[in-house]
């Protein structure tokens, strides 16, 4: 199969969905030029009426997208970086996810809006441009949350998100933009709520998110040489979360490490750990280990940033810790 990059998969998904459905349009800051390139060429193909450059008004245009979705369109909003999400929390969570996002109005209206956030720390971007705020969104019901770790999943999940009738948050890892992978040319979608086994193993389960899936696979290779067989699970969506696959794996291995590049306290890893410490307690043979970013803002200087972010070595260490 043809190989393309993660960023091209995003572009292709947007392009195909815009061709398929005239109600789909994209909006965001500098998307005609393409700040990071995901939207490159869209304005040439679809024109300025379907590719809207917005003013720097995150709360305003996220809210406008919610409104547009309530009145027949299927907007795809780009937040240039998820670090800017704090400005738009009100409209995304309070209005998008909670009000029109069915609940308050008792399912009388639907809000098929997709929020795309480029997310993560890419090196020396400093404390205000390296965020990973998806746990904050997980803490608020009403939003589906998708985090593709391969070009294949990106194309399929983004297409699914655009077709979904609920507000969906699609996380685009800034660390994966250049990643190559096999992607079919035509149409396909990847369903929400289905984790995938990236590698089978018998000793320890590693649940890994976004770019840490690759780190976990590398860690698994290293550990294999130490005689440790690691199973790597990629949940692919956090809301809904495929708890069954995680539990089944822990039932087999009895050991769990969660690798998640969001902040530790109340992060995604905390939720998965808490769930397994309840429902999977009987299977557990060892402490549940979390490998996350440390609980400080992301510093600019390279040695500092490296220290704060999770990586394959820390995953290895955590796996070894569960075997002590």
């Amino acid at each position, binding site marked *: 199969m043809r190989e393309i990059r993660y960023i091209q998969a995003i572009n292709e998904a947007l392009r195909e969905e815009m061709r398929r459905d005239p*109600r789909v*349009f994209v909006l965001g800051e500098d998307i005609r030029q393409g700040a990071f390139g995901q939207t490159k060429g869209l304005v040439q193909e679809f024109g300025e*009426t379907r590719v*809207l450059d*917005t*003013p720097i*008004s995150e*709360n*305003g*245009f*996220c*809210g*406008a*997208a*919610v*409104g*547009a*979705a*309530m*009145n*027949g*369109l299927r*907007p795809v909003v780009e937040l240039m970086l998820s670090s800017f999400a704090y400005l738009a929390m*009100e*409209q995304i969570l*309070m*209005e998008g996810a909670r*009000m*029109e*996002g*069915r*609940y*308050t*109005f*008792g*399912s*009388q*209206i*639907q809000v098929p809006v997709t929020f795309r956030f480029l997310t993560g720390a890419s090196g020396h971007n400093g404390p205000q441009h390296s965020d990973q705020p998806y746990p904050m969104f997980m803490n608020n*019901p*009403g939003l*589906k949350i998708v985090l593709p770790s391969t070009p294949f999943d990106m194309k399929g999940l983004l297409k699914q998100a655009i077709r*979904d*009738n*609920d507000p969906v948050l699609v996380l685009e890892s800034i660390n994966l933009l250049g990643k190559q992978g096999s992607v079919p040319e035509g149409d396909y979608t990847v369903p929400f*709520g289905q984790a995938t086994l990236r590698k089978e193993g018998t000793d320890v389960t590693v649940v890994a998110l976004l770019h840490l899936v690759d780190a976990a696979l590398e860690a698994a290779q290293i550990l294999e040489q130490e005689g440790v067989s690691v199973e790597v699970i990629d949940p692919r969506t956090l*809301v*809904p*979360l495929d*708890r*069954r696959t995680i*539990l089944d794996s822990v039932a087999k291995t009895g050991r769990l490490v969660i690798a998640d590049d969001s902040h530790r306290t109340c992060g995604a890893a905390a939720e998965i750990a808490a*769930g397994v410490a*309840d*429902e999977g307690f009987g299977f557990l043979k060892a402490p549940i280990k979390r490998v996350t970013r440390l609980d400080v803002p992301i510093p600019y200087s390279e040695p500092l940033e490296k220290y704060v972010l999770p990586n394959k070595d820390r995953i290895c260490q955590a796996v070894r810790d569960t075997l002590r």
Partner: protein
Amino acid sequence: MSTTAAFTSDKDFLAGMYQKMLTIRLLEEKVLQLLMEGEVPDLYPCAGQEAVPVGVCAALRPQDLITGTYRGMGHMVAKGADLKPIFAELYGRKTGCCKGKGGAKHLAAFDKGVMGAYAIVGASIPIAVGLALAAKMLGKDQLVACFFGDGASNQGSFHESLNLAFIWRVPVIFVCENNLYAASTPLKTSTAVDHIAKRADGYAIKGLTIDGNDVEAVYQATKEAATRALRGEPTLLECLTYRYGGHFAAEDRIGWNYRTAEEIARWKKQDPLERAEIILKDRFGWSSSEKKMLEKGIREEIEEALEFARQSPPPQPLEALEDCYFEMDHNFLWRWPE
């Protein structure tokens, strides 16, 4: 305050607007009474301001949309919503306009174009711009009127939305219900401008300040704004008015005291219903029996709606878990499998 060209409604039209205003007034009276009796838990009163929603909505067509606020009963009635689901919602019943989930601050009637009431101050403004953007992009013959208060004009969302509305040239009317207070906070100590309409220049749109207690003036100004809106020219329409009741129903019970009795009395002399009634009498020779009939009909409608609410079943506890996501078993989302 700019004056719009004198408009002379015909008798039925004005009487129709009067009827809506009276419905809002009597409905609120009733709900406040129920609130005192502990039957209804929550309400944000709008008595005194009725001419704004009624005048605006009279200039809209059925396909046009509105967005409202927690102070939402007026908007609902003005846009033609049925009283039954309103009452049932206040009572938290399954038959309520939001199945009892939204409640007093979130009245909605999507079939009538009431696209929800928002309890976060300023929240409805970006939503309205988005609704209007969709109307434009889909080529609908439709405009959006967005209601909010003077206090909301200090929110960032107001600023961002008015700029977007101009940039995108969408069919929207921003209706500012300037009742001089944001909760207990006076306009003059919280807002740099004395008239909100002055802010329109910052967004290159037309701004107008009108007498919001003159239902004909509100109607007329909205009519003109609607014409502009459909050409893609938004308007900021500031309607000067006054709320008689508390910011929230129980305000005086907790000892709030920020307005003088004189001020309230002065505004009551400009009561929108009385002013419309005088015109009906003076211009059209409306008789007091006509008024009585009208009032009687409204009271019956209210009683019927109240009865409907009381008879309606409360929702079942487990229904709390429904409606959060589309076509998805909610348990799937937060519960770990047994």
